[in-house]
């Protein structure tokens, strides 16, 4: 595979390759511009921005907007900064991702290695859940959360996201484990390993790539969710995305663009971090199962 790619690259020629790199560079720049503008303006005093100088580098470098966005900015009515909401999001994302991944892996394991009557129908239904639009479940979900007594809490949001995430997590793991040789499970059965021992000792250690894919997908989706956050947890339990909206849309006082930019970057930082740390496994995991070796 690697050799073939090298061959192809060599045959394009020097001029061709320069052109390709140029185009790629251009697009990369194009995508980076918004982020660069945000970054530049988040370290500028407000005066420089309102003075009409959005593009230029700051004359006075300052981290005050960042500090303000984090801990003192006005969110709705409280001057708390984004900090408490950041932790709200963490409290929501981490349990939701962990629970979803575990259940998804178990589902995938059962649906491929412990086949039962009607398993394809069960899988079909779970797959179907991936395609239910968020808006449809808003009202029923509000009712369920009310009955359970967890509306307006992080726990409520965790439940909502787990319900939505299981479908995708199951899809990922099922397809990954479908390519996992069943003979290994049979060998482990003969060796005397039980249901969970086989899962824990044989399948999980080989599930790295798909776990990365699943975690990145779930983390990004749940972290970036606004609709459920705004619908079920406005107020003290609101996640980062809702708080960011409240920060930017607060109608009192001056619009502190530099603080808004800093806040937006703060809100995007965790997903960015997950991509940078685990991104190289992402493509590998997506490809797993489709290509052998």
């Amino acid at each position, binding site marked *: 595979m690697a050799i073939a790619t090298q061959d192809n690259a060599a045959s394009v020629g020097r001029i061709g390759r320069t052109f390709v790199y140029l185009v790629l560079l251009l697009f990369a720049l194009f995508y980076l511009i918004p982020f660069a503008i945000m970054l530049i303006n988040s370290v500028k005093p407000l005066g420089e921005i309102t003075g009409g100088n959005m593009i230029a580098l700051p004359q006075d470098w300052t981290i005050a907007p960042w500090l303000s966005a984090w801990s003192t900015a006005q969110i709705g009515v409280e001057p708390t900064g984004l900090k408490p909401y950041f932790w709200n999001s963490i409290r929501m994302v981490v349990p939701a991702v962990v629970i979803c991944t575990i259940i998804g892996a178990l589902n995938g394991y059962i649906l491929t290695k412990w086949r039962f009557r009607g398993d394809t129908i069960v899988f079909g239904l779970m797959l179907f859940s991936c395609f239910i639009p968020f808006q449809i479940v808003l009202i029923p979900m509000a009712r369920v959360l009310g009955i359970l007594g967890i509306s307006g809490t992080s726990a409520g949001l965790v439940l909502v996201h787990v319900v939505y995430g299981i479908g995708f997590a199951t899809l990922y793991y099922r397809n990954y484990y479908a390519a996992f*040789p069943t003979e*290994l499970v*049979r060998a482990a059965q*003969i*060796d*005397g*390993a039980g249901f969970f021992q086989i899962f824990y*000792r*044989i399948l999980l250690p080989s599930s790295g790539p798909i776990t990365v894919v699943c975690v990145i997908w779930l983390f990004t989706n749940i972290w970036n969710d606004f609709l459920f956050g705004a619908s079920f947890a406005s107020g003290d339990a609101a996640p980062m995305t809702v708080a960011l909206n409240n920060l930017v849309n607060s109608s009192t006082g001056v619009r502190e663009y530099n603080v808004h930019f800093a806040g937006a970057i703060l809100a995007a930082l965790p997903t960015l971090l997950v991509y940078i740390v685990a991104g190289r496994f992402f493509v590998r995991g997506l490809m797993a199962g489709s290509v052998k070796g």
Partner: protein
Amino acid sequence: MGFLDIDNTTKSYGAVEVLHKVDISVVEGEFLVLVGPSGCGKSTLLNMIAGLEEITSGEIRIKDRVMNGVHPSKRNIAMVFQSYALYPNMSVAQNITFGLEMHGTPKAERDKALKEVAALLQIDHLLDRKPGQLSGGQRQRVAMGRALVRNPDVFLFDEPLSNLDAKLRVDMRTEIKKLHQTLKTTVVYVTHDQIEAMTLSTRIAVMFDGYVQQLGTPKEIYDTPENVFVATFMGSPAMNVIPVRVAVEGGVPQAIITDSEGQEVSLAIPQPNLAAWDGRNILLGIRPEALTDPKGADTDSRHIVAMHNRVGVTEPAGADTFVTMTLGGKDVIARMRADAHVAAGEMFEFAVNMEKAVAFDPKTEARIKP
């Protein structure tokens, strides 16, 4: 009562019965090979012995203990899979001792067992490697080590050599046979390769279409096949099955065959019971090595019949020369000495060893027993 009893066992998937009343009794230390083309039910039967597939009806007993419904790990069996099924995340040592660990064997004992097995299979130097770093033959050894270390009552092999290249396959075959001679453990071995079946087994069960077609020693299977399927499946090249007419001349039944020139030739068959078939057609089975040049004919046989026929194609294969010709309207293969002077298109005198000839009923394809 055998050591391993397969007693009237059937297997159905829904309304479809894939194994029909299989009845095999294996004595301790025996090497039973289940052989047949793919889809004949041999792997299903093995999986039923292992407990990986349920038994629809009948019983499977190991050491007189009924195994129906008993979990695979509690049957004291070990299995070697076609793909070896080595755990990719574990080292060779962990792979081998995983079963012992799951059965709660103390660490010290596990290490001792591991050492013994590693020494026996000469894989000491590989113990820290992962399966991905091993060659096919080495993986095969590790898979066998994993089975051996459990010290099971019965070894189950599921086409263990079919993933190896031809040369390694022959080496490993010998090695498995040696191992069986040393350990004298009961083995059930599934393969589709009839040579593996012949060389390894003490007894063979030839399977086709969910039925055991014949159960017997390799020699029985080879010399006296129960039906045309067994006759043609076992042996390479396959046994020639030629339609002939029986005519009794002077009290001796003769097989009347049309040769390549359209002439009728008669070959005396030393099977007096065939006199009952006088005037009727039968299928005559002659193995390629019983149809050869006069110098290559079996000198022990008292029923060598000479016959002239035109040579179609010659295929020198090193140790032998194979001759294809037309006989009884069919393509027939004869096996000659490598140095036999035979050329395509010429008439040649063949020696037919009629002692080895087998007669089949053309309707039922079953052997007409003497």
